[in-house]
């Protein structure tokens, strides 16, 4: 589904991603772990189309189509979703209106009819319940006055409503207590299916106890320096990133 080849990207005078190679197939869950500043979040944002980063080399394709050539909203229409590390507040725009506009925009881009407002609201309520959000939260302005945990739940809620094929989750576990973490993981696990893939960016392996990945990659210095199965995450938990960082430094 997602093929990343030799991806280089950065901001003006600073190279952050220095040659990432990654193959993600439908149905797989990939965890990308790494120390602070390793480029994990940059990678997630580049995939979503953040214009602050300039891609200087390499390619990213989604089912063979050049993803880097598409606008962020076009990527969303193709089924790419980024759950933000720091979700943005949108005062004056309710969650319900926001999601209906988003879903209709995606459907329009795909040549589909708009959703029925009543049916949509019903589906919205059902999905909100999965992540413990009530009607009041659906009607509140997007992320305005939400606690850190509520914002993260709202990201997963949006993901459930928009039903993307490629879910990129950037540090979704940060700032969550154990109960909220379980709620978020339940939402994600409920979405796992053979057609959908996940790229989960996280600093800690804690989240991976609840969302069990198929593959774990270690990112250091803007490169993936090690890949393996679930056991790699447990090894990192025990030994930390120090060994990998030394390896990277000696390259």
């Amino acid at each position, binding site marked *: 589904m997602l093929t990343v080849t030799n991806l280089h990207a950065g901001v003006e005078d600073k190279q952050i991603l220095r040659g990432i190679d990654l193959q993600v197939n439908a149905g797989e869950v990939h965890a990308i772990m790494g120390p602070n500043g390793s480029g994990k979040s940059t990678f997630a944002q580049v995939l*979503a*189309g*953040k*214009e602050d980063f300039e891609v200087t080399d390499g390619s990213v394709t989604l089912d063979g189509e050049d993803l880097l050539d598409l*606008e*962020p*909203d076009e*990527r*969303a*229409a193709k089924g790419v*979703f*980024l759950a*933000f590390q720091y*979700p*943005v*507040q*949108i*005062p*004056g*725009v309710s969650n319900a209106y*926001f*999601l209906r*506009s*988003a*879903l209709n*925009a*995606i459907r329009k*881009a795909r040549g589909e009819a708009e959703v029925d407002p009543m049916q949509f609201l019903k589906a919205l309520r059902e999905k909100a319940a999965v992540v413990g959000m009530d009607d009041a939260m659906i009607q509140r*302005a997007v992320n305005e006055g939400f606690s850190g945990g509520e914002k993260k739940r709202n990201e997963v809620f*949006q993901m459930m409503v*928009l039903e993307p094929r490629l879910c990129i989750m950037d540090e979704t576990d940060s700032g969550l207590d154990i109960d909220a973490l379980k709620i978020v993981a339940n939402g994600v696990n409920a979405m796992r299916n053979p057609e959908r893939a996940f790229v989960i960016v996280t600093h800690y392996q804690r989240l991976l106890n609840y969302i069990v990945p198929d593959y774990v990659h270690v990112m250091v210095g803007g490169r993936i320096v090690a890949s393996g199965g679930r056991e790699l995450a447990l090894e990192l938990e025990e030994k930390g990133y120090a060994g990998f960082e030394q390896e990277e430094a000696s390259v």
Partner: protein
Amino acid sequence: MSATAVHEAHGFDPMLDAAPGWGNADLKALRKAAAERFAEVGLPTLKHEEWKYTSIKPIAGRAYRLGGDPGTPRALPELPGVAARVVVVDGVFVPELSSLDALPADVAVLPLREACEHNWANIAAHLGRIADWEAHPFAALNTAHLNDGVALRIGGGVSLDLPVHVVFVATKGRVAHSRLLLIAGEESNLSVIAHAYAEEDALLNLVEEAWVGARARTNLSRIQDAADSGALISLFTGRVHAEAECETVTLTLGGGLVRNDSGIVLAGENIHATLDGLYLGTRKQHVDHHTFLDHTMPNCNSFETYKGILDGEATGVFNGKIFVRQDAQKTDSKQSNMNLLLSRDATVNSKPQLEIFADDVRCTHGATIGQLDPSQIFYLRTRGIPIEKARQILTFAFANDIISKLPHEPLRERLEEQIFERFASSGTNES
């Protein structure tokens, strides 16, 4: 400069000659005093502190048509769910376009001319005495031409559930000096929607005065608009008494030249007053709002939020004054002015002015000028919303904070739709 010279220089018809001889001695004296005041001060220039950012050159050189039978308005706003509709075209009350039949007996809508002739005792204390025409050259000019308009009076203790809809239009090529006088008796409950529109090449010079009795509740929604070649200059002043509530929302949709002075004098204790506004400007429009809240007595609160959205090469001005007089202890007043610039060529000047003479008060003010937040736009785009739609949603959300304060649902819904649609094509010279 003499009155005649001012008129000759700026194309306004001589008012003293044009002003009809009707009315009683008091009214004639009022008109004469205002005419003399206008002759003394003349039209404001950029050297005038209150007109520093607003040049009236675009209108000063025009030859407007004054007086005669009112013209035919191109369009008149109509609203469902109102108690009465009052239409004033080119300064003259037009009974055929108005409908007053459903009003209860203790609510009177009077053409000003009729009110002056038959109900002088009721209005003499207020007409021309609330709005400070001595300080506003255009209000002086208006008062000098005080000829017709509408007086709306609601009796003490009377509640009118539905709003009264008043429409002021200056038709193409005309200058109209229009006036509204609201008199809300003690413990009354009144809401008014006042539409004001200047057509092409027209100047609507409007003065709105409101006298709000003790414990009364009044709500005034003002919707203003002018053609790109039109001008709208207005002064609203409310004089509010003890324990009353006075809420006002002004929506300015645009216009070639708009200058709106709005203020409330809090003349009693325990008053709650709000002064909110939204102003939109596009192309080469100029939209200027000057506001004042004058706290003269203790234990009152006032809240003011004005928001501006400027696109194209439009210019906006906001000047908000809050006076807290020496006696006005325990005043609680908050003012904020927020501006959104949708294009590189749009500008705004924002100036809060607090003058506080009491020592035990809480007054805050803040002003911001900014653009749409790129991180918000990106967030919406990652959810599939195209950039134009993202900008439209975010711009409307900024405006809707004020639109949502309009109490009359049909009016609010209409403006929501109209303003949302308008932002579909905003900010086109960027991104």
